[in-house]
Structure formats: structure tokens, C-alpha cells
């Protein structure tokens, strides 16, 4: 059976390690030629914010990891419109190609494996 993996990132970056570890999983599945996409929702849309400067808290910006997504063969980056509106993210990181979606359930239904860490 062909698997399709959707990783749901619903927490802001830097507060904990779950998002980074979700990316590690996503990139490793993509490296093994599995169809993989990422979905940012809730506070997770903060991953997409432009010009993050986490050096002051001794972290590295997650934008760099995300811009590598297409290199790793990640098929799509989704963000739900309601969350983008809620966090006032009219414009996300310009280097990223984001598909905005209305229904999370509709996207989830296109995948066999939905992963929330």
C-alpha cells in the first residue's frame, strides 16, 4: 500500500522541540521517496513568519529548515487561512511557497498517515 504522509505542525517554533522533530521525520520520509506534505495550523503558522530573529534566545531560525523542504522533496506546504488570519500573517516568509487551505479535514483526507507530534 502506498503511504502518503501529512505532518501537522500546530505549535509555535522555539517553545519546544516537537516541530523540529516533526521536520526530521518529514525529511527522512521524503528522503526515502515517500510522498510528504506539511500542514501549519493554529500557533504553528508562526513557523511561516518572515524575518525571525531567534539568535537572542540561542536558537537557529526555522525558516532555513523550511526553505530546504523542496530540496528534500516535500510536495507541499499547507497553511489554513483561519489561523493565518488569527495570527495576522498576511505575508509569510517570501522564499516559501505556501498553499492556503480552507478545510483541514479535506487535506487530511488525501493522506494515509497524519502525524501530529
Amino acid at each position, binding site marked *: 500500500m502506498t*503511504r502518503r504522509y501529512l505532518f501537522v505542525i500546530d505549535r509555535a517554533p522555539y517553545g519546544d*522541540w*516537537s516541530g523540529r*522533530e516533526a521536520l*526530521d*521525520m518529514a525529511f*527522512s*520520509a521524503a528522503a*526515502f521517496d*515517500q510522498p510528504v506534505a506539511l500542514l501549519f495550523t493554529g500557533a504553528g503558522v508562526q513557523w511561516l513568519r518572515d524575518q525571525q530573529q531567534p539568535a537572542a534566545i540561542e536558537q537557529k531560525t526555522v525558516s532555513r529548515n523550511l526553505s530546504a523542504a523542496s530540496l528534500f522533496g516535500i510536495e507541499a506546504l499547507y497553511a489554513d487561512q483561519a489561523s493565518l488570519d488569527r495570527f495576522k500573517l498576511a505575508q509569510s516568509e517570501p522564499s516559501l511557497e505556501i498553499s492556503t487551505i480552507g478545510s483541514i479535514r479535506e487535506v487530511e483526507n488525501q493522506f494515509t*498517515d497524519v*502525524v*501530529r*507530534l
Partner: protein
Amino acid sequence: MKKPAQSFTLVITGAPYASQAPQTALHFAKAALDAGHRIHHVFLYGDGVHLASNLACPPSDEADWPAQWREFLSSRQISATCCVASALRRGLLDATEAKRYEREAFNVSEPYNIAGLGEWLESSQSSSRTLYFNGSH
């Protein structure tokens, strides 16, 4: 009509005593076996690797989740992996890693082995379903 038996991979990403994830996963695993299904593999990831520590000493009037899981895995002969990247970051080492990183002690041993994300992917591909237990959703 009886549904055909399924095989499950369980991924635990919540730590014991910080989340309910290991307990929920164990209850699920036992119920699945009782219903005639199979647990193909257990993968500890993120904070879930703390479950593999054999140095956890909870008070005697509390459930010892790491011990209960070890007993369950051994008696049912279910294979379990602790993700190496998650484990090293959090100070969970087996004898081999302790030697490699020149540390004085190690706290991961049978029934867990330490390996990479390839184990997760391989077991997820060979199970009918993979369930993720993070304890917070």
C-alpha cells in the same frame, strides 16, 4: 462480520510523568492484542524516549510506567526502538553510545534498541496503521 486482524506500529512522543502518552499507548496495545490484532513495533521519539530509561525510580505508591512497558514488550516479544537523535539529545544512551561518546553510564538496554528514523519508516510501511501518542492532543 468480524474485521480482519490488523498490525499496528505505535509511536510514543510524550514522556512518562510529563504526559499520559505512555499509559494511553500501553492500554491501547493491550486492548488491541486482546482483540486479536498485532503490535508490529513500538518507536519512541522526541520526549517519548524517556520511557526507555531503566534508571527511572518513581515512588513505590505510583505506577512504574517504564517498568510496565519493559515487562509488556519482553513478555509479548514486541520489538521497540528508541530514536537515536532524540535519545542522545536527552541523555538516553545504551552501552554502545556511552562508549562512543565517552560517558560513564548508560540507561537504555533490552528490550529497547537505539536506531534511526529508518526504523520508524520501515515499521510504518509494514503495519496496517501507525498511531501516534503525544499525550497532549
